[in-house]
């Protein structure tokens, strides 16, 4: 929280994929730190919101800590035309700004063979739109509507965290992850470019690349990874969370020309 004119101001987080494991864990762990706009497609996050609260069946009038600082849940299909602007407009109307954008919505679909494109083309394109283009469009929409003052952005440490995967960094053969892997690799590189562009506006962009959760990593570990990137000062980095621990994987920036 930040002090502004003597008032403690909570930061605002626009979180996609809020109904998933990671989104729900992030809401549960950080709802006191952020005003969270929790965007979900089908299943609302399993945390207190304007849609649901918790009750102790043996003491229904008891104030439960889980009900404090509820998230604001927004149902949206971000792949729909207008879906991106819709959630950004709601975030701005509700809290007046966005300090942290967490793109945690993802399409995990696996396909038999990368060579079998034509029979699965529509589904593959859906995955690409959600995993690659929606995160980039969301950052663009927030930037154009709110991140207009470099000084404010820097003082609020505004940033984007794009949730990728170790599958975007290395090949897991035989797992049907060809297109998923490609979508995450594309997200990584677009994030690097976005980091470069938005740094001029004082906004940082980083990537979180976890291995599988909750089997190999705990979901809470991954949620804390998001927060580490949000609270730090890194820009254009990939925080890799893997079996052996975590490390940063930086972008390589060409000193000139183009490839």
């Amino acid at each position, binding site marked *: 929280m930040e002090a502004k004119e003597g008032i403690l101001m909570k930061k605002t987080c626009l979180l996609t994929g809020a109904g998933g494991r990671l989104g729900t864990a992030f809401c549960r762990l950080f709802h006191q730190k952020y005003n969270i706009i929790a965007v979900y497609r089908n299943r609302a996050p*399993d945390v207190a919101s*304007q*849609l*649901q*609260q*918790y*009750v*102790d*069946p*043996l003491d*229904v009038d008891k104030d*439960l800590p*889980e009900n404090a600082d509820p998230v604001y849940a927004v149902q949206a299909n971000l792949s729909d035309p207008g879906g991106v602007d819709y959630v950004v407009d709601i975030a701005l109307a509700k809290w007046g700004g966005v300090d942290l954008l967490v793109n945690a919505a993802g399409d995990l679909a696996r396909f038999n063979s990368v060579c079998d494109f034509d029979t699965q083309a529509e589904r593959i394109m859906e995955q690409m739109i959600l995993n690659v283009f929606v995160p980039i469009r969301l950052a663009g929409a927030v930037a154009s509507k709110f991140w207009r003052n470099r000084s404010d952005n820097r003082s609020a440490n505004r940033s984007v965290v794009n949730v990728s995967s170790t599958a975007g960094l290395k090949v897991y053969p035989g797992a049907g992850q060809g297109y998923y892997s490609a979508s995450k690799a594309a997200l990584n590189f677009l994030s690097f470019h976005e980091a470069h562009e938005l740094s001029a506006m004082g906004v940082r962009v980083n990537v979180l690349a976890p291995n599988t959760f909750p089997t190999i990593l705990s979901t809470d570990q991954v949620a804390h990874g998001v927060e580490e990137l949000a609270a730090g000062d890194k820009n254009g980095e990939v925080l890799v969370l893997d079996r052996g621990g975590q490390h940063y994987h930086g972008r390589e920036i060409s000193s000139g020309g183009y490839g």
Partner: protein
Amino acid sequence: MVDLEKSLKNRRWQRRLSPFPHFVANDVFADNVYHDLEAGYKEIMARGLSDHPDPARFSRSVSGYDVYAFNFQAGMPEAFEILLSRQWHDMIAAVAGIEATGDVNGGFHHHAAGSGNGKPHNDLNPGWFSGEPSPAGINLANHAECNYHHGTSKKSHVVTRETVRAAALLIYLNNPEWKEGDGGQTALYRVRTQDVEAADGHAAPINNSLLLFECTPHSYHAFIGNRYHPRNSIIMWLHRRVEDVVNRWGPRAVVKWPT
């Protein structure tokens, strides 16, 4: 003596507002309690299924509904004592926010694999009882003595009394692992005329979970056909005075049973 503190595993039930106020909870009972409930259910199932009304076993006794039902009655396995206790009744009434009479009806529902969809309905129906609840106990519907739907009795000395269903509770148990696409959920609707497949919310038949809602003119719900696996549940209703319903929603709110 029932000890709900020890019998309940989950002390955080979710109160959801959409499409109408309802409660859901997973891991409701302590493991040993749930185990006993499931064993009791199997014990009754072992008596076999009847395609004709038969009060001694699961039978097709609910007109127009693709289900085998077995009513709560004396002589049930001891495991179900908790559900027929005054403590359970009062807890459910407190959570649902109703002033209940102590009258209870309920039973067990078995939908064989391939059972058809139900139709949206609100459960705001009459419930007729003989006898009176004691302060320390409940008054369980006695179907041999009093017709629950219409209050008729084959015994001339029996005095019957009309109430209205106040809260409906479904407990899911003895089901195979559920996944999206299996069907068998309880679907929730905003209006009665909605397409049964176009629900606004669902409660999935996950073992040891529950769905609870106050019966109101708007509590529309229906069974969604189970495509691959049987669906098993316990259903029970608490009741309220007729005049409470009339005072709140008017004299035409109660949905009479077909004659």
